[in-house]
Each structure stands twice: as structure tokens, then as C-alpha cells.
């Protein structure tokens, strides 16, 4: 049986390359049928805001990558509830069209259930 692993995404998009390179790693893994689970936490929840328009800063939108996730077998993604609340956000304010977003209150327990974590 394959070892389950989690991609923990904690970076806001665009300010640095880690959010983008993290999603690229997730897509590459999934394409090889080693599909990780995803947890958006900290500033990583900002990746999920709708109506991102980075053309003005000459970057590609990350939302295309996010919306491609179900095609690669990632149907749901976890979102840290506490991180949302800290930022004045709730699930209803996030973008739809990608994986189904599932709120998590105890991220520690979730993380501890995986064999490996890829940090982004």
C-alpha cells in the first residue's frame, strides 16, 4: 500500500515562488499517481481567494493550477479554520471550481496521521 503523504501549503501566492512551486510539485506527484492530500494553512489560505488578477504584476494566476487539481485526482483539500478566522475569512469567501474545501479545526491531529509531509 502506498504511503500517504500531505502537502502543507503555508505561503501566500505571488510574493514569493513557493506557493507556485508547491502546487507544481503537487501536480507532478499526482501525474505520477502519487496523489498527496492538501492542507492550506497560514497565509496559504490566501491562495484560495477568488478573483485573483495577477496580469498587472506580470504573473500567471495560480487559480488555474488549483482548478486543475480534481483532474489529477485531488477532489478535496483541507483548510485550517483557525488560519481563516485569523484573517477575517470564512469558507464561503473562498474560490469555487477547484477541489472541494473541507475545514479542519485540529490540524495537528490531521498532520500526525500522515507518513510524510511536503512543506511549501
Amino acid at each position, binding site marked *: 500500500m502506498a504511503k500517504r503523504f500531505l502537502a502543507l501549503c503555508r505561503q*501566500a501566492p505571488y*510574493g*514569493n515562488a513557493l506557493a507556485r512551486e508547491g502546487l507544481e510539485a503537487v501536480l507532478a506527484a499526482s501525474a505520477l499517481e502519487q496523489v498527496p492530500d492538501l492542507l492550506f494553512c497560514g*497565509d496559504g489560505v490566501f491562495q484560495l*481567494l*477568488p478573483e485573483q488578477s*495577477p496580469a498587472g504584476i506580470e*504573473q500567471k494566476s495560480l487559480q488555474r493550477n488549483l482548478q486543475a487539481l480534481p483532474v489529477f485526482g485531488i477532489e478535496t483539500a483541507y483548510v485550517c479554520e483557525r488560519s481563516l478566522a485569523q*484573517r*477575517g475569512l470564512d469558507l464561503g469567501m473562498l474560490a469555487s471550481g477547484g477541489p472541494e474545501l473541507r475545514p479542519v479545526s485540529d490540524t495537528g491531529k490531521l498532520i500526525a496521521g500522515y507518513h510524510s509531509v511536503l512543506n511549501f
Partner: protein
Amino acid sequence: MSLHIVSKSPFSSTALADCLAAFSEGDALLLIEDGVYALSGRMSESPAVRPVYCLESDARARGLEIPGAVEAIDDARWVALCTEHNPIVSWFK
């Protein structure tokens, strides 16, 4: 007086808090890059300091609304702000 440029998210870095602690009467604050995430918190309604500017392209890139208390600016106005203020202090870590 100083122009303070903050480019990191206030939710993951203390750059904005450190900047506000070094803010003087007459200074101005400009949010760029991930610094614009300050608009998604309490600052958006009642900024701790004034005036507060933000680069419109950086806020739009991230899907953020720009509240009335913050002035959205373009690159030309950014340059103008830098001519109007001195020194220019960057809070990038």
C-alpha cells in the same frame, strides 16, 4: 518625512508591526507585494496610521478589495510618493 514600504504579509511576518513602531507623525505607509494582505484584516477599516497607500496592481493580483481608508495608487504615483518623502525605508523581512 519617511516613506515606509512594507512588502510582507502581517499574518506571517512582523515587518508591518515593526514598521508601525517606527512610524512618525508626517510619515506615510505604502503596502506592496504581500504587504497588501494588511487590507484583509482590521487595518482596512481603521488604519493604525495615516496616510496609507497600496499598489493597486498588487491588491488586484491577490483578489483583495481596497477599502476607502486606503488610497490605491499606480506606479507613477509610487514614484511621486518617493520624491515627496525622504528617507525611504523598506520593511521586507
